[in-house]
């Protein structure tokens, strides 16, 4: 099962590091990262492998949201199927 982590907010030092640390602590592997910075705004997407994750998706989503608030960005974790359903036939 794959999840998509998205991060949106003002760029600052260590955003990726903090999120990756959170994921690695829960045995979640990052498969791919794409990011853009436009006008100081940071827009990142990560594809993560949740098949070996030590915590359920729903609680990790809440945890990442809280982490995002602490570092001043909006972080979401969602099951990848919602994006596949909407954008792929």
């Amino acid at each position: 099962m794959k999840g998509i982590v998205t991060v949106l907010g003002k760029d600052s030092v260590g955003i990726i590091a903090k999120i990756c640390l959170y994921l690695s602590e829960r045995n979640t592997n990052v498969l791919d990262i794409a990011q853009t910075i436009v006008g100081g705004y940071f827009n990142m997407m990560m594809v993560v492998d949740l098949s070996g994750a030590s915590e359920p998706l729903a609680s990790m989503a809440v945890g990442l949201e809280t982490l995002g608030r602490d570092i001043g960005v909006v972080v979401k974790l969602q099951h990848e199927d919602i994006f596949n359903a909407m954008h792929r036939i």
Partner: protein
Amino acid sequence: MISISEVQETIRMISEANLDVRTITMGISLLDCADDNYETFCRKIYDKITLKAEHLSRIGDDISKEYGVPVVNKRISVTPIAIAASGCRCEDYVEVARTLDRAAVATGVNFIGGFSALVHKGITPEDRKLLDSIPPALAGTERVCSSVNVASTRSGINMNAVNIVARLVKDTAMMTAAADSIGCAKFVVFCNAVDDNPFMAGAFHGIGEGDCAINVGVSGPGVVKRAIESTRGADFETLCETVKRTAFKITRVGQLVAQEASRRLNVPFGAIDLSLAPTPAIGDSIAEILQEMGLEQPGAPGTTAAIAILNDNVKKGGVMASSYVGGLSGAFIPVSEDRGMIEAVKLGALTLEKLEAMTCVCSVGIDMAAIPGDTPVETLAGIILDEMAIGMINNKTTAVRIIPVIGKGVGEMAEFGGLLGAAPIMSVNPFSCADFVKRGGRIPAPIHSFRN
């Protein structure tokens, strides 16, 4: 591989344009609960509902968290009680309504529908018992919704039933007068009612359905509005294509949630209802779509065409996105639940007659319209009858959920609170139809119903 722009598009739909799954509704058959002992019947239906829907709320919330899309309501619909309870020896069905209310509280759903009767051709003694129980049932419960089907294309309009339900609307209004006649907000009169409607207040689990089914209502007027902002000044082809594409995307989310809910609950997937349903929230309004299309206010000339275009293209886009489409699948224009519609009524742009015209081209009916509390019962019957005639002749579902707000008159506001919103009292044509509706009997089925 999904691109970052596609991911951001989905996230923006949810966070900025109020994309949500409006309801996961579990339909539950109560036919196997039949018992001639009233108390036993009530116990059986409580046990069955609370067992089947035990995990409904939790699973709805889990799906919402995992996919990051709000699942706003979890609801239950049951077999029309006039049928399910017909074997009971009892005076009325008010205790059934109380039992349904308790089952709704126990399962954590905000509404339970099916305190209903199907009387489009005739009224059995059990139907009559149910009808007479509606006002006290709605006044005495919080979460129970009721509906009555009084007409169909195949069998015509049961005018006796129309006259009875008009009286029920008035009685329910009287019994809940202290709360702006809110009981009427939980009562729908139908022509061509459908078996798999997930939306309240008209949901019931039809008798042709299986033991249990999951029906999902998607929504997203805000997403459609946002999408067509990019088509300002463009021709109708562009407008229609944009609505279609957007409806496809919205419905795919509904399909995903429906399949997932069905799998986790181990209940068959019934249908997706492709209705755009507004809420009182800003940016979640059908009226705003009509304005974005180019109308100054809903109700302006062109409104009927605009709602026709909207409905047709929502269906064209949505049908391809789902394996089973059902329910009502038409735009809802509940006045009290749509901020833009409320404004249009206040400005005098939108009248009851224009709402009726809009229902001819596929919106579902006159919905959550508040009228003066002193409106005569015969006039209520006339308003219901007109809407039933539209449904019967056009072979479509139409509905009336109208609220004569006791003690209030034109220009005043009725406050219902929460999802039900607030409604300005609309004026009603003052001329009488009493001698017409009093004829009673049945209006025969239209010629085009004979298709065999």
